[in-house]
């Protein structure tokens, strides 16, 4: 079955002129505990299907779940980082639904008693601050993985499905915002920036790898439109399957343009769940005309969680420096301008990699240059995250050390990057194997300079007559003859010696 898309889309700027956007984000984050939420099964990725399971995470009758203390600790630290209150006392609840990724037909979650609530974070987009109100952060568990067999591999038209419960019971946090108003034309970017903020925060806290491409962090994006001047909330859609920061922005833009076209044509937006397709559009999923009824009730197998205020304060003391404060500190330490810092913030993961490269000995400006211009472009071309581009901070620092020692020019260094990314080893190995080192050996350079002088008698005469600036053309000729591997400063010296 092919996906047929014929949505009318309004021009984004026109949509912005006619409507106000209200966004809501639900973010799921898998915690990186060693064991699962209720049992001792490993949370490690991979393994044979169903080999990381036991009666508890398979939900067999008579099994008794026990809460993983580390998961609660991580959840409280996340809540505190988001400025939340921590519940004095809260319970788990069973959320009943029927889908084979949950063998017991309910997910253990939290209903009206979330562990953390009433927080807020501020994110900055294009120099403007946006307040994101966080309604709640609650604990739940991940589900198993279903694979649909037959048809096109989608659930529709499948003949049957296969289930692997290795992820079943992995601790999951759900972070839910209140409706986000007042983002102007920047709604999709604000959403993306908020997700990037959460990801950075999770990593700084050390509670999750927060890799969206691996499903450690997932986002459902709600959006609705109100005609300008109206205060009545429009019907919203919820877009699922949003698996990268880029997709969050793109999916919201698409939904805004689609809803705007529907409303402008006098239609009404259907309340529904939509799926984001990496092809760049959303498709209708389940209709939500009937509010879902999960029949929540308190989980009788688990006792309440009542974190003491002492424990909460102990955990508060372990919180890392907030991202905004850390950025400001690093910017000052590295001597970067606002603009340079904004470039860094614009590349996901760049800040961390630059920090590690500087720690490995590279000057700040060089670390920034390699990551933000060269490697970011390579990562973009390869369609991978910057930290998966194939070069480590240590290697970048080693490369820069070669440049600083005069062994490489920036141009040669880019060829060394080619080699490292192609898996040819460390920068020094690539230099040796590809013969890329700068030639500063006088006899080789001297011979090349002689050839250039002979080939360009006119230019040589100008230099003899004192027009030193003409030396550039000869340097260029020598560089060309030596495939860019000549030490340009030494070449210049030799030319002036010979013709001076």
């Amino acid at each position, binding site marked *: 079955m092919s996906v047929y898309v014929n949505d009318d889309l309004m021009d984004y700027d026109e949509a912005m002129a006619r409507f106000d956007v209200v966004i809501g984000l639900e973010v799921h984050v898998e915690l990186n505990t060693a064991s699962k939420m209720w049992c001792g099964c490993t949370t490690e990725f991979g393994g044979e299907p169903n080999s990381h399971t036991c009666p508890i995470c398979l939900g067999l009758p008579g099994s008794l779940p026990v809460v993983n203390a580390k998961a609660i600790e991580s959840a409280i630290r996340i809540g505190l980082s988001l400025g939340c209150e921590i519940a004095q006392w809260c319970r788990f609840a069973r959320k009943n639904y029927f889908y084979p990724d949950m063998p017991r037909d309910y997910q253990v979650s939290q209903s009206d008693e979330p562990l953390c609530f009433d927080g807020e974070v501020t994110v900055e987009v294009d120099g403007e601050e946006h307040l994101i109100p966080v309604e709640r952060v609650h604990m739940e568990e991940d589900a198993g993985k279903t694979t649909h067999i037959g048809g096109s591999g989608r659930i529709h038209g499948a*003949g049957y*499905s296969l289930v692997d419960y290795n992820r079943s019971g992995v601790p999951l946090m759900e972070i839910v915002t209140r409706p986000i108003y007042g983002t102007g034309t920047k709604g999709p970017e604000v959403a993306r920036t908020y997700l990037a903020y959460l990801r950075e925060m999770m990593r700084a806290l050390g509670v999750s790898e927060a890799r969206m491409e691996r499903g450690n962090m997932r986002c459902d994006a709600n959006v609705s439109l109100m005609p300008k001047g109206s205060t009545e909330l429009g019907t919203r859609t919820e877009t699922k399957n949003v698996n990268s920061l880029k997709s969050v922005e793109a999916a919201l833009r698409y939904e805004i343009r689609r809803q705007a076209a529907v409303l402008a044509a006098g239609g009404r937006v259907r309340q529904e769940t939509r799926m984001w397709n990496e092809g760049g559009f959303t498709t209708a999923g389940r209709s939500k005309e009937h509010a879902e009824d999960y029949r929540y009730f308190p989980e009788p197998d688990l006792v309440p969680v009542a974190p003491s205020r002492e424990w909460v304060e102990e955990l508060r003391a372990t919180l890392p420096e907030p991202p905004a404060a850390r950025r400001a500190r690093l910017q000052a330490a590295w001597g970067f301008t606002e603009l340079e810092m904004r470039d860094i913030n614009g590349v996901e993961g760049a800040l961390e990699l630059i920090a590690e490269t500087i720690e490995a000995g590279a000057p700040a400006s060089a670390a920034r240059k390699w990551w933000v211009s060269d490697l970011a472009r390579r990562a973009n071309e390869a369609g991978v995250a910057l930290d998966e581009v194939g070069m480590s901070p240590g290697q970048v620092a080693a490369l820069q050390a070669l440049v600083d020692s005069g062994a490489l020019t920036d141009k040669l260094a880019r060829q060394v990057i080619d080699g490292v990314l192609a898996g040819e080893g460390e920068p020094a190995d690539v230099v040796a194997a590809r013969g890329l080192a700068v030639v500063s050996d006088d006899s080789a350079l001297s011979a090349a300079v002689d050839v250039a002088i002979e080939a360009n008698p006119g230019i040589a005469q100008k230099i003899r007559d004192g027009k030193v600036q003409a030396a550039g053309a000869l340097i260029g000729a020598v560089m060309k003859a030596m495939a860019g591997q000549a030490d340009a400063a030494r070449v210049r010296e030799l030319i002036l010696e010979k013709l001076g």
Partner: protein
Amino acid sequence: MALTPQDVARLADLARIELSDQELARLAPQMDEILESMTNLAQAIDDDVPPMSHAAPLVNVFRDDQVRPSFSSATVLAGAPAVEDGQFRVPRILDEEA
């Protein structure tokens, strides 16, 4: 507030239980009686009795984050009605729709 057969039909639908009209007619008054008993109970309880959701007056029963051996997938799958590629094979999830 009497529970109607329609209410019961909705609950049965949510719980994926198929009930005949006859069963709905029989179960509605029975469930209504249970609800009424609960209402009576609520009236008998004073405001100073805290609500309770668990038989044991415990909080914070935790385990350390330690990995323990899982079951082998052979053991796990032994009781499954159908198995394929080391996974649980389940019937088609969605009914065919137009």
